[in-house]
């Protein structure tokens, strides 16, 4: 696994040398959308919290970055760790309230918070109200440098989304998360603090989605509340994760590939394309609730990112 990670790392590092700027932009988009999906996958498949409002953190991350960068004239790339902290803090602040609700009520409550934040920003002139904010600082910078740095950040997020998640899932905290997801009562019985474990997962997913959101909107130089807090982000994340397979590292990779291929083929069909995304989610739930990757694992037993360890005493 370490070798695979190293190979991916090197491949990503040299990519900008061979790729034109237009393709670089597309790759930034693919990597950030993958990171969004992976943050939701982590939340739903590893922490066991299903949210319909992950766009909250995408928008928040973008706004935290744009507002701070514009106000102090700081290079936005240095602000990304701060965005992680701020989004994590926001998640930590709402967690005590939303954790009182379960399942669908939890899912909807985050969505409601996303709507509240969107409406608040839409009415604040200092935050650009409905027309949004431009990113000032990168205007005076070299375009190529901005695009390449942006690519490295997006690639780093995608890298973390794959190998970081795998690493985390095998750590002590990852096992604790899995235990809490599978059975709260049993997890508590073996000495895991259910509330704090879940809290950790929620904050981490929020911070990660925030950084990904900031990266995405940094690459388009403009953010507006209608787009950043758009529930259609949720549709996209859901589609990618469900089609690929919830709770696997590989699933969202396949899901992202299918999503971008579909988008390329069906661009211009508008609603039909969204309908297809929804229908695909319904069919997947009925036919193979583990997603496409679930079928592969079941049939071929191929699971490179297996977080389960082989049983020590095989029969």
């Amino acid at each position, binding site marked *: 696994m370490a070798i695979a990670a190293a190979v991916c790392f090197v491949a990503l590092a040299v990519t900008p040398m061979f790729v034109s700027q237009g393709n670089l932009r597309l790759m930034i988009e693919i990597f950030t959308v993958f990171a969004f999906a992976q943050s939701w996958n982590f939340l739903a498949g590893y922490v066991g919290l299903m949210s319909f409002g992950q766009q909250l953190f995408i928008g928040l991350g973008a706004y935290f970055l744009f507002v701070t960068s514009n106000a102090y004239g700081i290079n936005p790339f240095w602000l990304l760790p701060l965005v992680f902290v701020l989004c994590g803090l926001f998640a930590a602040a709402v967690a005590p309230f939303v954790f009182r*609700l379960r*399942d669908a*009520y939890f899912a909807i409550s985050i969505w409601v918070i996303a709507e509240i934040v969107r409406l608040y920003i839409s009415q604040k002139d200092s935050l650009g109200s409905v027309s949004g904010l431009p990113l000032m600082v990168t205007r005076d910078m070299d375009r190529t440098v901005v695009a390449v740095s942006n690519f490295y950040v997006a690639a780093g997020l995608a890298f973390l989304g794959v190998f970081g998640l795998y690493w985390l899932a095998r750590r002590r905290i990852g096992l604790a998360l899995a235990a809490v997801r599978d059975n709260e009562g049993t997890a508590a019985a073996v000495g895991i603090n259910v509330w704090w474990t879940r809290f950790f997962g929620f904050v981490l997913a929020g911070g990660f989605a925030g950084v990904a959101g900031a990266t995405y909107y940094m690459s388009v130089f403009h953010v507006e509340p209608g787009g950043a807090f758009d529930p259609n982000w949720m549709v996209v994340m*859901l589609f990618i994760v469900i089609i690929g397979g919830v709770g696997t590292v590989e699933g969202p990779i396949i899901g992202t590939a299918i999503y971008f291929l579909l988008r390329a083929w069906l661009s211009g069909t508008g*609603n039909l394309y969204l*309908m297809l995304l*929804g229908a695909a*989610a319904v069919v997947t739930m*009925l036919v193979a609730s583990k997603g496409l990757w679930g079928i592969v694992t079941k049939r071929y037993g191929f699971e490179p990112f297996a977080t389960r360890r082989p049983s020590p005493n095989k029969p």
Partner: protein
Amino acid sequence: MIWLETIANGILLGGLYALIGLGLGFAFGVMRVVNVAQGDFIVAAAFIGLYLYPWTPLHPILVIVPVALIAFGIGILLQRVLINRVLGHDQIPQILLTFGLAIVLRNGMVSWFGANSQSINVGNMRFWGFDFLGMRLGVLPVLVLVIAIMLFAALRFWLNTSRMGRIIRATADDHQVVQLLGVNYRNVYAIAMGIALALSAVAGVLLAMRGSFTPYSGADRLRIAFEVVVIGGLKTLSGEMIFRPTLAGTPPRT
């Protein structure tokens, strides 16, 4: 005086909001199924009403009867064909399934009916009003509240006295034990989902008569339903009816 009138209008709207929440709460109470597509079904019912009301005899408001029957049928189909297949201890598949369904429904309605704002025309009744304790109240909102209360009372009476109502209550308590007594709980679930959608459909049509709707209204309707259920409590029917008006004081959503 103006705030008294506001409170009165809040109560009138509250009856309707209660009806929206009732469908969701009923489905959850009986089956532990959270139908995330409920809001979009409400809007779909409004569209069915929009196309049926010119053919409705006597008065356009009676269109709620055929729409409720259609929604009942759709509910049974929905439960049998889709939701019954993903039932289980885990709620996530049901929620994702209905979420996917909601996306399909919403975008389907946009492409068929367009994104324009629509309303069901009930003729002059919209403008009728009467004076009550010095307040001016509309006939239509009062009628809507009366229909909502009647549906609540009828549902409660039916659940408490009829054989089917007893079976539904027993299934809600423990769907495994009723199987021992010869009840196929999946059929009961189908009927319960039919009732849930019929109630929501009535609410959707009445809401479309009082105000306007677009194919995108489903998300707002769903939020109202959730707020109703969360504030009113899931277990009790009367809880929703009592607490509902507290929410209706907030600005109306279209």
